[in-house]
């Protein structure tokens, strides 16, 4: 090996960094660095902010090691040196091999010495779910007592971001207190059950509502009832008249009040709602005819507060498709004290109120569709609740106080305290707690009793302390020894965002979770379990930013068709979650991330995708016609919405978004030492012009060429993922005018044509999004690798380390023959050493 040249030492001395005498420079730094890299990356030139002469080869230091990992990666990909001629292929190979070996050894040594990652505290969703499961309170709400958790690598499960502070600890104590109080009862019997049946004019608060007769009327024999011609008593008498129907024809957006009379929850809990209804069409002169399609509706709960929505509003009871044939529907809603239920019809228009100079309001609708305006007619409604628990005191109370009843009167305070504590801890802890530790909590309870607390309060203090203790709050990396409990917790928090269930805990106690077959079966079981929805929700909330899907309202000047279309946004969100669930449960190949011949759709999305009409709100798998640009996460409306803002799309933003999240090749941050280029887009007209200016600077172009092209192909989709051939504007172009779905005039223009063609950085060209999909789908291994990386951070709290890479590649090898199916990838991770903490 050649000696490291002397000027290297010289520079290092000058830079004042040559401190670590233990670092053996000459021996360790691969010689190719000196031959091919120093020219651009020395103290004088420092291209890209990198001065290799000042970068020690001290791979034990984590931050230095990570810089060398970046160097390794860029050399391996052939990005550095930028010209192929600057480094012969065999030199490149030799350099990569040498760096790989050195980095692997250094990282591996650290994993062996300190573990793959540190303890991680539960985030607030996990803490809440743990307590819901422990206390058997599925509706417990304590999440908002805890501060929002910081995100790392997009996820709220990243070790290094889940810090502890006095604020956090206080919040855990407050949350534990609130949860325990919610679990306990003091009343001798469950709250009385209310049972109310309403018919006729009691089905609605008044005889009309915002939007006049077009939005709501009472009917008898399919004809509008004109209350104006009847006396006031008629309305009152109508409250017992079951020949009267209540018909509704508008979306539930502000201002809107439409709750059945006389229903107000005096106690929080679940209420059973039964009602009879049919889908109808409103004809001229307010005549009802049977509908041709079902109309989706749900209920909303809130405290009645007039027209203003100032209280919490929740959608409850799920979406129900009301069919044209009259029938009885049943659902369950959750009500808090003082709340009522409102009808909430989905996907219908809403009227514009006009009251110039304070005159009485008049309303304006878009022209009703041919054949009549869809709506729902209700004949009667019953509500019953709160549905009492199967036992009293409820299960949650018995978790705390076993058989001591509502009074919680111990036979012997000292003995019962010890017994109850051990019982509670065995239910709450995720692994056995030593007698030594239990005695600390015994002592606390005894101290509280001595200080005059009641038995109940003293027990709660002990429980609170346990629920805020390190044992409960932290998840541990499985140790290489027999650590079945840590594996169980890791698996359950990965796939259900909560503690291990009874079966998993039992297998951990029997030390069965090192058995690959058992572990695989358990993972499969949890994937098929109901708790898996929590994985899908939280994972897609973070990975795909689905929780921000309502961040930007569509700019209604440009996109009037999306005004107040909450049903569309909700359907988009459900589509992506349904698709992702199917990717795993149906074990689809990884390239469905970018390309698929099917979508999940309902009545609203079928229109959005320009498919043949569908009926009903439920998401169904639909095969796409040949040549459809939809299919795959890449072109799902939810993805295209969160990667745009409400007014326009940016190929730069969308391109970077897709490369990072879906492809797993995030654009590097702009180097800080490069003199900042001030973007100047004056004079640019079309998006193409903007992009050309943007990438004219050489220092920008190098990176932008990696992600801009993908964004260009996605220009065929508007801000909500609707297909478009031309951009929209306000001034120039072909003018389109009309009345939108909320009664407003609109007027926008169709301007320049979308050009979705481009060229990937490797030179492959595409004419549009379908070409691009084919190109991206041709590299399923990278798509699968990205999924494995995302799953690894999510499941273990630590991103894929350099020394994990070999195992990741061998998982990919194993999954290659079946086209990298997504559940296979997940199961491979669960069985891996990365997940189980083995050190072979």
């Amino acid at each position, binding site marked *: 090996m050649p000696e490291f040249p002397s000027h290297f030492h010289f520079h290092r001395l000058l830079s004042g960094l040559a401190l670590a005498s233990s670092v053996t420079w000459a021996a360790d730094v691969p010689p190719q660095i000196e031959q091919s890299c120093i020219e651009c990356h020395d103290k004088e030139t420092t291209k890209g902010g990198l001065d290799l002469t000042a970068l020690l080869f001290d791979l034990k230091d*984590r*931050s230095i090691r*990570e810089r060398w990992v970046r160097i390794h990666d860029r050399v391996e990909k052939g990005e550095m040196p930028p010209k192929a001629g600057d480094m012969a292929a065999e030199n490149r190979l030799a350099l990569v091999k040498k760096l790989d070996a050195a980095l692997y050894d250094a990282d591996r040594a650290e994993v062996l*010495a*300190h*573990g793959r*990652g*540190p*303890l*991680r*505290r539960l985030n607030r969703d996990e803490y809440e779910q743990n307590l819901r499961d422990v206390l058997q309170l599925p509706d417990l709400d304590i999440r908002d007592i805890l*501060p*929002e958790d*910081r*995100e790392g690598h997009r996820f709220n499960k990243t*070790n290094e971001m889940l*810090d*502890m*502070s*006095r*604020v*956090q*600890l*206080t919040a855990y*104590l407050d949350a534990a207190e609130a949860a325990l109080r919610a679990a306990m009862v003091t009343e001798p019997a469950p709250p009385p059950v209310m049972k109310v049946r309403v018919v006729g004019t009691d089905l609605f608060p008044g005889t009309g509502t915002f939007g006049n007769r077009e939005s709501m009327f009472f009917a008898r024999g399919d004809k509008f009832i004109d209350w104006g011609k009847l006396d006031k008593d008629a309305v009152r008498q109508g409250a017992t008249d079951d020949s009267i129907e209540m018909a509704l024809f508008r979306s539930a957006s502000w201002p809107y009040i439409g709750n059945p009379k006389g229903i107000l929850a005096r106690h929080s809990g679940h209420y059973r709602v039964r009602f009879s209804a049919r889908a109808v069409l409103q004809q001229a002169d307010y005549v009802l005819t049977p509908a041709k399609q079902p109309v989706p509706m749900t209920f909303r709960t809130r405290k009645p507060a007039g027209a203003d929505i100032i209280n919490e509003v929740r959608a409850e009871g799920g979406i129900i498709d009301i069919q044209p044939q009259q029938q009885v529907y049943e659902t369950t809603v959750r009500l808090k004290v003082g709340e009522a239920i409102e009808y909430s019809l989905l996907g219908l228009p809403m009227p514009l109120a006009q009251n110039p100079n304070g005159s009485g309001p008049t309303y304006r609708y878009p022209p009703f569709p041919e054949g009549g305006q869809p709506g729902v007619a209700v004949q009667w409604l019953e509500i019953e609740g709160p549905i009492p628990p199967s036992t009293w005191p409820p299960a949650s109370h018995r978790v705390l106080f076993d058989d001591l009843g509502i009074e919680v009167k111990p036979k012997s305070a000292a003995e019962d305290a010890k017994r109850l504590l051990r019982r509670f801890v065995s239910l709450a802890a995720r692994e056995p707690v030593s007698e*030594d*530790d239990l005695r*600390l*909590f015994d*002592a*606390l309870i005894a101290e*509280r009793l001595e200080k005059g607390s009641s038995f109940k*309060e003293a027990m709660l203090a002990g429980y*609170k*302390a346990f629920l*805020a*203790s*390190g*044992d409960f709050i*932290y998840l*541990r990396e499985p140790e290489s020894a027999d650590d079945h409990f840590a594996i169980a917790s890791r698996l359950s928090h990965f796939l259900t965002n909560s503690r291990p269930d009874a079966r998993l805990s039992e297998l951990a106690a029997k030390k069965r979770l090192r058995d690959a077959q058992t572990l695989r079966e358990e993972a499969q079981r949890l994937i098929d379990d109901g708790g898996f929805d929590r994985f899908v929700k939280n994972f897609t909330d973070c990975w795909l930013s689905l929780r921000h899907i309502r*961040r*930007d*309202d569509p*700019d209604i000047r440009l996109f009037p068709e999306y005004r107040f279309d909450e049903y569309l946004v909700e359907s988009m969100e459900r589509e992506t979650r349904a698709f992702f669930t199917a990717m795993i449960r149906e074990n689809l190949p990884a390239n469905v991330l970018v390309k698929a011949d099917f979508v999940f759709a309902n009545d609203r999305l079928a229109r959005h995708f320009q498919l043949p009409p569908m009926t009903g709100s439920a998401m169904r798998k639909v095969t796409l016609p040949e040549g459809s640009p939809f299919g795959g996460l890449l072109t799902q409306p939810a993805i295209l919405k969160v990667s745009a*803002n*409400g*007014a*326009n799309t940016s190929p730069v933003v969308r391109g970077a978004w897709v490369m990072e999240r879906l492809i797993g090749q995030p654009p590097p*941050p*702009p180097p*800080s030492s490069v003199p*900042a*280029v*001030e*973007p*100047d*887009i*004056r004079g640019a007209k079309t998006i193409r012009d*903007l992009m050309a200016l943007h990438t004219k600077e050489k220092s920008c172009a190098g990176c932008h060429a990696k992600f801009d092209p993908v964004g260009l192909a996605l220009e065929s989709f508007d801000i909500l993922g609707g297909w478009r051939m031309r951009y929209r504007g306000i001034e120039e172009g072909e003018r389109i005018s009309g009345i939108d779905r909320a009664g407003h005039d609109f007027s926008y223009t169709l301007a320049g044509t979308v050009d979705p063609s481009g060229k990937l950085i490797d030179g492959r060209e595409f004419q549009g999004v379908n070409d691009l999909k084919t190109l991206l789908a041709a590299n399923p291994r990278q798509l699968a690798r990205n999924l494995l990386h995302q799953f690894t951070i999510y499941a273990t709290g630590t991103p894929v380390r350099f020394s994990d890479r070999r195992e990741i590649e061998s998982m990919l090898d194993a999954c290659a023959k079946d086209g990298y199916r997504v559940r296979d990838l997940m199961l491979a991770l669960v069985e891996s050493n990365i997940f189980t903490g083995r050190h072979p």
Partner: protein
Amino acid sequence: MNTPHIARTFPRRQFLRGAGVLLGLPFFEQSLARGATPAAPRRMLIISNNLGFLPKPFFPKTAGRDYELTPTLQPLKDVRGEFSIFSGMSHPDVNGGHSAENCFLTAARGPTKSGFRNQISLDQFAVEKLGQLTRFPTLNLGVNIDKANRSLSWTRDGVLLPAEDSAPALFRRMFLQGDPAAVKRQLHALEERGSILDTLMDHTKKLSRGLGSDDRSRLDQYLTSVREVEERLVTAREWELKPKPAASRPEPADIQDKKLIFEKLDLMLAMSQLAFESDSTRIITLMVDAFATPAFKLHDEENTTEGYHGLSHHGQAPDKVKQLEEADRQQMVLLRKLIQNLAAKREDGARLLDRTMVMFGSNMGDANKHDNTNLPVILAGGGFKHGQHHAFKADNNKPLCNLFVSMLQHLGVETDAFGSSTGQIEL
């Protein structure tokens, strides 16, 4: 740790009405003894808009007293003598565009580097040195803030302290007085919490035996937290015994709509003034999270054409620049209002403004190009001689921490260094 103490007496009548009956004499004596000759309170409010201001219309061209007010500063014309403007300041090695936003009051170097940990922020540093003088040692507020990921306030361990973004919630914390039974319950709860924390401390010490260094440092964070909550219980108890001050206005209605960013800022500034007037706290930080702000209301009926972040990358497009100029000016209008309100309020015969330093600045020098040098900084009040433009070199910035050191000293903190300071700024 400094012994916590209560520095200011509260109005005697209020004391007799509220707490006297409940508590008896010892506390009264104590407060008399301590509060006999209180030093004039010094206060500090630091506001940062994480996307900053357009530099060209912001910075004056000439230094010194006779600088010409720029378009952005124009709304401050009437209070010209009440503030100073600083240019050519920044935090050395705090770069990386948006990553710098969490370092505005910490000056922690290299926020984009791997393994980066933040450091203690100016407000927390001041409290460490001064002890808890008021019911709330500091208030950390936000407008439109992404509470999970952004804050101006950080612990010594570099842990984010979440901001309060609800004005009514803040108001209730400051002024809503529980009845005697509630106070008693609260005192009991505090006492119980003390016992629980003792148990947690013992338990964690046992837990940490035999752990690796990474795990141990995680548990150290936990132990520090237990210790800090415990320390604060002592003062929390003292403050629980003391009635809350009376509010000079009713509880405000909450504004949740992110579009109304300036209405929200206006309300939070009013709450800040209320906190100072009632001596609920003397140190406030307030982040205006422009980054998390979607298209927002500029005028009565007009919204911006896109979100704040999109606008900030204006690329000199005239329509975007125009909207930003307007947004910048509106914030200066709010600053003027605050300065005037603080000047109009008297405390022991002095203007509240003269006892309150108000800094309005940003981690961003030029958001269009993600530049974290040449930060915009305005300092008003505090009793300094104002009216100047302190211009430092644009190509060789002065550490902003030098100004922080001067502010700390003015607050009464005995220190000659903070963060990356190399000295102080003569004011």
